[in-house]
């Protein structure tokens, strides 16, 4: 299959998924008390305004028609207005999203940089002391709720040992965030530990599987050492399923680890969402869900495209 055909197919699939997401959000919008009128006009709208709005917008019309209008609004970037902050939701998100990406992005990079070599090492020295220790640690961190982990880290490193601040840098711009790097440490570590736990297990399993493959035996027959084989052949082949797993991590990347942001009071998407939930600020809630989901779908699409460029088999074969 040519690259163009493959890409078209994937883009169409992504569009289908986005469409389904908008349907889900639309249904939720209509399940809300007060309905979409409130969502657009804000909480201070009077009943008269709401009735006028409903008539003007044709909210008495059939649902499919309303859905199309909803889609139309989305395409112009209108996500409604926040009840509590009285700003357009799209603007709020545009402010907060980059900050979340910084936090979760750094966590992810840190997590992967540690997880991938650790997983490979575990597989190379299977059932050794390092393997057991790393497995036990992975299980523990894997099973620890992020808020508990964060809490423990704060108590240990902020209270008992006053090394690091317990609050993440607050501030409206990215530049302000970076002025206080120490404040980023604990939230980043909280996110990274969870990631290391998950991805080291995947890398270990994937590497173990690849070590059983025939091409490893061929390379050994050619005189290569185990470490060389791992480095030159097994590593790349083992990455493929791990990269696929990153797709499941994208919602976290965009949405921010909700509880982490809330715990450390970091002004990102997660905290925005949390505050909106506390004050029943539906437009913000739904706007966030929509943006995060669509960003995830696009992210997955880009990841697939990248993989097709790297892995020659994917390029040539059917997705």
């Amino acid at each position: 299959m040519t690259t163009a055909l493959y890409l078209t197919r994937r883009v169409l699939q992504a569009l289908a998924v986005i469409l389904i997401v908008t349907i889900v959000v639309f249904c939720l919008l209509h399940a809300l008390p007060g309905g979409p009128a409130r969502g657009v006009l804000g909480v201070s709208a009077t009943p008269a305004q709401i009735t006028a709005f409903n008539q003007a917008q044709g909210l008495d019309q059939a649902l499919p028609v309303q859905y199309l209008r909803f889609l139309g609004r989305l395409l112009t970037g209108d996500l409604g207005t926040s009840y509590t902050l009285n700003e357009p939701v799209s603007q709020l998100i545009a402010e907060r999203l980059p900050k979340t990406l910084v936090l979760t992005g750094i966590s992810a990079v840190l997590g992967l940089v540690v997880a991938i070599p650790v997983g490979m090492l575990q597989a190379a020295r299977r059932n050794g002391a390092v393997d057991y220790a790393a497995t036990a640690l992975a299980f523990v961190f894997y099973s620890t709720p992020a808020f508990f982990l964060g809490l423990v880290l704060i108590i240990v490193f902020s209270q008992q040992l006053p090394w690091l601040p317990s609050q993440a840098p607050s501030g409206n711009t990215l530049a302000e965030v970076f002025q206080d790097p120490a404040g980023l440490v604990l939230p980043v570590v909280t996110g990274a530990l969870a990631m290391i736990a998950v991805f080291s297990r995947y890398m270990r399993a994937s590497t173990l599987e690849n070590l059983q493959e025939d091409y490893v035996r061929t390379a050994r027959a050619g005189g290569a050492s185990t470490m060389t084989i791992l480095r030159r052949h097994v590593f790349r082949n083992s990455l493929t399923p791990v990269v696929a797993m990153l797709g499941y991590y994208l919602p976290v990347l965009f949405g921010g680890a909700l509880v982490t942001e809330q715990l450390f009071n970091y002004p990102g998407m997660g905290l925005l969402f949390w505050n909106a939930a506390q004050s029943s600020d539906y437009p913000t809630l739904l706007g966030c869900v929509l943006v995060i989901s669509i960003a995830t779908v696009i992210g997955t699409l880009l990841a697939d495209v990248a993989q097709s460029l790297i892995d020659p088999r994917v390029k040539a074969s059917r997705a």
Partner: protein
Amino acid sequence: MSAVQLAPEAPGAPVTVAATGFRLAARRFRGNTLAVIGLAVIVVIVLFCFVGPLLYPTDQTHTLLEQANQGPSAAHWLGTDAVGHDVLGRLMYGGKVSLMVGIAAGVLATVVGTLWGSVAGYVGGWVDALMMRVVDAGIAIPALFILLVISAITTPGVAGLILILGLVSWLVPSRLIRAETLTLKNRDYVLTLRAIGGSHARAIGKHLLPNSVSTIVVAATFQVADAILLVAYVSYLGLGVQPPATDWGGMLSAGLTAAYSGRWWLIVPPGLAVILIVCAFNAVGDGLRDAFDVRGR
């Protein structure tokens, strides 16, 4: 046998079969120390939560301000909380909810996921494509966010909580079961059955499902682990059961501010309990997967 076999196949030659005998799987599981410990931990915690209150009865519904905020002592082994409830008793009480909701939600998620995935995998074609796009959409929407939105609309009871958590988590098992179904449906014994006129119902009921059991069981175990964790998150955010009922996540949420001022007994027990039970289920799931030789998570 009248025909002489010239060379019987070697006794130790590994025979790769579609399903490992149950006895062999049990033996492998028993040899996995971590998994056996996990199973023991689960049993102990279940007993602790359900039989414990009979041996150590405490009042978990009334406010008893005169014994509030006490540290661990002989009378209250893990101290008391801000409204006077005994923490150890509350741990048992909350554990019941965490476990029940977690296990039920995990099982529900697996059942729904199995149905969805096996239908998609078996039917194939555009039906499969559509069903999988729905799964993709579900995965793209962050679970916690959806849960918060739903809770902003209604306050679910325990049953509602189980339903919602299950409906948010069925996506991952559906992909696993679909992959398993795709592999199994092209096995020779299924093709043979179809060739001689066997129905789809028979292929699914007699061959596909029984051979997927090990994958489903492993998936269910991991789903329960994830569900218990998710319940903790949900309760921590204040969306779970309402006071005076509680679960471990709720205990963590309630004890948050107190923890900063040194009252560690309010958060360490529930936190450790969550870690322990989720760890245990994950270890058992890992052990089952190795014992049955199942691929994928």
